């Protein structure tokens, strides 16, 4: 049983590292979302199904989308500014 927990813990830390180390912002946001999913599996191993559900729905679902909406606003403005110059 513990070997599975170790596998998911390593995957969580690895996706967090990818989120910090990558140069593309979109990849960083996606890796943070994937890290939320793996962390919710870690919560299941810690006998916390409530927290796992919340983390999967909010931490990896809604947060990723909110980040992408913000990124989209920044990007569309940058494209417009470039056209005006």
């Amino acid at each position, binding site marked *: 049983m513990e070997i599975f927990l170790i596998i998911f813990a390593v995957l969580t830390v690895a996706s967090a590292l990818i989120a910090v180390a990558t140069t593309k912002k979109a990849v960083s946001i996606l890796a943070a979302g994937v890290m939320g999913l793996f962390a919710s599996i870690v919560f299941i191993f810690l006998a916390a*199904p409530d927290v*796992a*559900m*919340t983390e999967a*729905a*909010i931490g990896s679902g809604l947060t990723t989308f*909110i980040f992408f*909406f913000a990124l989209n*606003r920044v990007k*569309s403005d940058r494209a417009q500014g470039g056209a005006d110059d």
Partner: protein
Amino acid sequence: MIKKALAVLLLAQLCTILFSFLSVYQEPTSLNAVSSHYIHNEPKELGAANAVTAVVVTYRGLDTLGEVTILFAASVVVGLLMFLHKNESAPRRDGSELLKTGASLLFPLILLFGAYVFINGHLSPGGGFQGGAIIASALMLTILANPNRHVGHGFFWAIESISGFVFVLLGIAGLVLAGGFLDSRVLPPGTFGHVASAGLIPVIYIFVGLKVGAELSSVVLSLHGKSEGGVQHHD
């Protein structure tokens, strides 16, 4: 570069401190007094099968009230700042026919699932926060399928205010009719393990779910930008 080196040094120190705490940490073998009281007396006192729900709604109900207040403040500020800066982005590419049909087919099903999650919060894992997040994600599916459609905020603000008001009223009802603020023993506990049991807990959690769902939906709508204040697109 020197900034990065300083950061690494600081984090190394923090790492040493945290791991030295970890090396002396011993896993407890039994629950402490408070948690043991919650677990062992809660089924007879309140009748909720899910102890986490009982803690969130009744024993630590004031925490939940403060939490939804913070979320309300956050969603108000997000809406305000996004209203001050009207987004004038070009109309986005419409979703395909398959996505639109699928979204309109799935929208009521996801809403139903969210309602199921928060109505069954006192029996199984789940509850108001999860159900609210699921409702907000149903809304997100429709705005991703129709990115140029105008969705008003007013409906969500109405639901948010009404459910917040009812939440506080239920808390005061607990204060008047039972032991304290947000006490759920206003209604009889009922049969253990049935949907209509645990006194007021399912009712309170339904309103928490509606409130959280409306707040998260309005945050998503504000950040998406095609809401009130943005450019009006006629379909």
